[in-house]
């Protein structure tokens, strides 16, 4: 026993066995460096493709693509996708999805506009509408987590439910948003405000995901629900929180778009919005089955799709072509991600 102790204790005081330990650690630090840069490549590849597309369209039709008005056009496409995707990434990482996001997107500004139309100050109406969005998220989360429904089903239900409610409130007519004031300017009135919000939210949520307990627990919940619960993580609360933030972001994106479009916000919303946001997440490198993801990647995924759609318009390809390319891009991104994961694992094992 004493013999064993003297053999095994040196590592503690950084003694004699360091000669053996340090080189292995250095070597492995090099390996881990390669590994983690490959990991970042997951985002890097989408960024590179986005930049390549940007360069292509810039060279192809510089006058129309590289104009201020066109940039504002692209940011109109991208902002709502990116903001909704920031929430969907959190949900996808913990193994869930919100199909109703596009309807929360429609409901929230309609609630705000009708409250404001009935005399409430805009700021109050805005806050109340966000509370309504949060309630939708809470409902999705509670039903999914406590009644054990797959979120796919829960949110499919709320999708129709919210659509109906929104049409009732609006009387099925497009509604006009307020156009005056600083708050209006900040919430989509000024043409660059939307994209700035999208960038700010993407950065903030990326920090949340990678550098806070909330983010770590979201990953843990998605990767190993039982294990995370055994470690004492409140896995149900983590999931409900993700539903809540997704709904609030979706509602916020709707508010920005509603004010931006100003004259006629369509109460039908746009179901494609949610699918595009999920597509942006997946293209950006988020696993559909949970356990890993990146909000920044999703932002660039949205940017990539926005540049593609805008560029196709400019070079005269139809919207139909865009949909085909979008579909192909999702499948390619998924294949690339799974192959990369396999490659990473075999690189580590070797």
């Amino acid at each position: 026993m004493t013999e064993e102790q003297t053999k095994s204790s040196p590592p503690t005081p950084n003694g004699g066995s360091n000669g053996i330990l340090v080189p292995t650690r250095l070597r492995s630090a090099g390996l881990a460096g390669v590994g983690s840069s490959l990991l970042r490549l997951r985002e890097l590849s989408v960024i590179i493709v986005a930049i390549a597309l940007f360069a292509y369209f810039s060279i192809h039709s510089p006058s129309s693509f590289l104009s201020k008005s066109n940039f504002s056009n692209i940011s109109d496409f991208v902002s709502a996708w990116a903001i909704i995707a920031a929430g969907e990434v959190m949900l996808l990482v913990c193994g869930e999805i919100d199909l109703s996001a596009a309807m929360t997107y429609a409901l929230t500004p309609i609630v705000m506009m009708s409250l404001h139309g009935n005399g409430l100050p805009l700021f109050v109406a805005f806050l109340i509408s966000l509370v309504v969005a949060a309630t939708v998220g809470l409902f999705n989360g509670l039903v999914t987590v406590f009644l054990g429904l797959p979120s796919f089903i829960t949110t499919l239900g709320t999708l129709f439910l919210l659509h109906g409610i929104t049409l009732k409130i609006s009387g099925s007519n497009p509604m006009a948003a307020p156009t005056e004031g600083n708050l209006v300017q900040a919430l989509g009135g000024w043409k660059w405000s939307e994209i700035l919000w999208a960038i700010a939210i993407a950065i903030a949520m990326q920090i949340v995901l990678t550098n806070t307990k909330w983010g770590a627990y979201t990953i843990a919940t998605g990767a190993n629900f039982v294990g995370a619960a055994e470690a004492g993580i409140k896995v149900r609360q983590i999931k409900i929180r993700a539903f809540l933030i997704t709904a609030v972001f979706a509602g916020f994106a709707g508010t920005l778009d509603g004010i931006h479009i100003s004259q006629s916000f369509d109460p039908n919303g746009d179901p494609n919005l949610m699918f595009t946001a999920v597509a942006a997440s997946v293209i950006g490198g988020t696993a559909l089955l949970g356990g890993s993801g990146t909000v920044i990647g999703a932002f660039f995924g949205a940017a990539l799709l926005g540049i593609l759609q805008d560029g196709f318009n400019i070079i005269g390809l139809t919207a139909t072509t865009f949909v085909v390319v979008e579909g192909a891009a999702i499948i390619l991104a998924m294949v690339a991600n799974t192959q990369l994961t396999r490659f990473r694992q075999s690189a580590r094992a070797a």
Partner: protein
Amino acid sequence: MTAEQSVSAGSAPVAIRAEGIAKRFGTVTALSNINISVAQGEVLGLIGDNGAGKSTLIKILTGYHQPDEGQIYVHGQPVTLKSVDHARSLGIETVFQDLALINTLPVYMNLHLNREPTRGPFLRRREMRKQARRYLDDIGISIPSVNAEVANLSGGQRQAIAVARSVYSNARILLLDEPLAAMGAKEGGIILDLIKMLRDRGDLTVIIIAHNYSQVFDVCDRVNLLQHGEITLDKATSETSAEELLDIVAKEYRTGGKLAEGRGRYLAEIRDTD
């Protein structure tokens, strides 16, 4: 205390003791009258065939099941373990193989899971890495890097990380459920070395649940044999052998008329491990 207990446990105080534990599920009696006692710093091997009641006993000791009869004492105090969390708060941790790890998080995050040091709302990653590295070096676990994702480690390394996490989180009494299951000799060696290391440090009490006799003999101070809900043997490992245990189990099979089947199975099992 019996003579053979005092050989290995010396005069160390008792860490956990269960007296007269019985547990029934409907009409099935899983445990009839269990008495076990493990001294502080001791490694106890709890062995028995499938269905002997091992997992029921473990679940009682970790607060997952409540016994119908009997009393548990932790560090001399009578306790009623209300839940897994309650048991954990008393320093009792269970490692169910490597199932509790988060595959997509790096080793250092797994070691700190739910106990992350933070500054304001932010994780102190550098601090976590440093502590993890120091700690793993300290207990002699060798992995490529604390930054490695757990998914990329071998089965033995993962199990070692799972054990290390429990110990790191201030476990005083560690229950290992089949720690060598589905592991090759080399992989199992990582775990056995780790258990020896922890035993030599002396402050941790370990109960290893296994049905693989010879491997358990290597690291345990004492073995308890569990058969049909009762402890039928309690000896220091130095005073018994895998063969003796085999004979006892085989005898039971003989009286149950299952000699050929039983002996064949256990011989195969022992051969497997050599």
